[in-house]
């Protein structure tokens, strides 16, 4: 800059960006994004035997012929009561993740406590190709893809068949007809195109849609042409309830072909898994 008196002053131009500050900001933003991503990452923790067999197999994949996934407290309770109550199932792993609604333990290696919302894997001792997954924790939308990729990434795709059980409030079921009390709870099904067999209940009518983990799993199976069938139970009770769990019974037909099931289940065993809210809830008389 030239002044009136002929001297030349060097001044900083305000038009030039202050590179140093910007870089810091960007770095900070990137750092925060990375931290959040790491925090929200989905980790599958297998038990030592399974981790070993994963390593031993060349492709890092487990042999699995049937994967049964239960999403939601009623579906998980049904599996616990009807399938997992025999002694022949081993807990082989769990999924550890963090989101605002599912604050998993900060150390991944700690298995979730019984009764905590969690995502657990069980394998049948006599038929190790049958895997059961019980998911009662909330998995955020941004984590669903990771969950599906990582879980299915550990399984052999060939010969795999998937069944998903999930529950949903009946208030979300859209229908032009009035639903009488006796119709609820009820089952509806959805299949991937690769699935050949007949579903055991009517198909889910339009415009109803699935969301969350069941939708992510079914989408993955559809894309990768894995035969998959989903049974969604619509119920009017918000807590785990024995009548809702009994609604999943038709699925036992498929399961009994794979593993030996308890032939006859007393209502008492079911009630153990259903939270007895009726006595505590004095809301309705």
């Amino acid at each position, binding site marked *: 800059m030239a002044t009136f008196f002929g001297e030349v002053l060097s001044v900083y131009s305000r038009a030039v960006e202050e590179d140093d500050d910007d870089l810091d900001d960007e770095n900070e933003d990137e750092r925060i994004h990375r931290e959040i991503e790491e925090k929200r990452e989905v980790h599958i923790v297998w038990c030592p035997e399974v981790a070993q067999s994963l390593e031993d197999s060349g492709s890092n994949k487990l042999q699995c012929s049937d994967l049964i996934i239960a999403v939601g407290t009623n579906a998980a309770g049904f599996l616990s009561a009807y399938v997992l109550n025999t002694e022949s199932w081993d807990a082989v792993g769990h999924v550890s993740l963090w989101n605002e609604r599912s604050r998993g333990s900060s150390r991944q290696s700690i298995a979730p406590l019984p009764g905590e919302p969690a995502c657990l894997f069980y394998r049948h001792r006599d038929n190790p190709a049958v895997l059961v997954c019980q998911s009662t924790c909330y998995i955020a939308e941004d984590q669903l893809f990771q969950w599906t990729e990582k879980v299915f990434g550990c399984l052999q795709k060939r010969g795999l068949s998937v069944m998903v059980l999930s529950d949903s409030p009946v208030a979300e079921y859209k229908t032009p007809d009035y639903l*009488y*009390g*006796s119709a609820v709870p009820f089952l509806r099904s959805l299949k991937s195109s690769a699935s050949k067999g007949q579903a055991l209940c009517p198909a889910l009518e339009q415009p109803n849609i699935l969301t969350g983990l069941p939708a992510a799993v079914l989408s993955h199976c559809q894309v990768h042409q894995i035969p998959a069938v989903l049974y969604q139970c619509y119920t009017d009770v918000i807590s785990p309830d024995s009548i809702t769990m009994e609604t999943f019974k038709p699925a036992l037909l498929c399961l009994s072909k794979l593993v030996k099931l308890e032939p006859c289940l007393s209502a008492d065993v079911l009630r153990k898994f259903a939270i007895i809210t*009726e*006595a*505590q809830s*004095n*809301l*309705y*008389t």
Partner: protein
Amino acid sequence: MAARYDRAITVFSPDGHLFQVEYAQEAVKKGSTAVGIRGKDIVVLGVEKKSVAKLQEERTVRKICALDEHVCMAFAGLTADARIVINRARVECQSHRLTVEDPVTVEYITRHIATLKQRYTQSNGRRPFGISALIVGFDYDGTPRLYQTDPSGTYHAWKANAIGRSAKTVREFLEKNYTDEAIATDNEAIKLAIKALLEVVQSGGKNIDLAVIRRNQPLKLLESKEIETLVAEIEKEKEDEAEKKKQKKST
């Protein structure tokens, strides 16, 4: 479609629904079953007992409440709403006695309750009462009455009716079995109420509460022993009927 019209109670939907009132009727279905029968000289209220927690005082969990000496009601739905309605009705019964020096007629107190319920369907910021009530009693002139109210504030007189969880099943049973012979005596009317409840109650007599009002007598809550005796009588009658049918078939 309902989503835009069920927020505020005072808004009609384009097809004329008041969704909050209809949802309140769904809340009624969450309560356990109650049945009311109008006999010739007796009125009977039977309810499915709610399962009581181990440490809870059983006698504070009652579905049948006296409104006055000659009127009582059973409700189904939200417990707290019922308490408010019952309190207001009891106050009105006494106020009526003091003002008019006569006990209320069953229709009067039912109309009072129904008017109260209707007011709550027409003001903003308030939700309807989530209860239906069966109101039974004898009028001053000795006529037995049974009325039913619902969250919308309507009330009607009935010969026999049921509200709550499996009301439809019980009502169908009553439609088939409410005959003049069935209510010929007081005992028969009580047994009809028990039979109706046994259609939907799971574990039999120990889950049933019964209240009766006889003409010129106060409300009487039956003891569980009496109910068990009556249930045993009903079972025996059923067996005898089945035996008779078998014999008829074989001859």
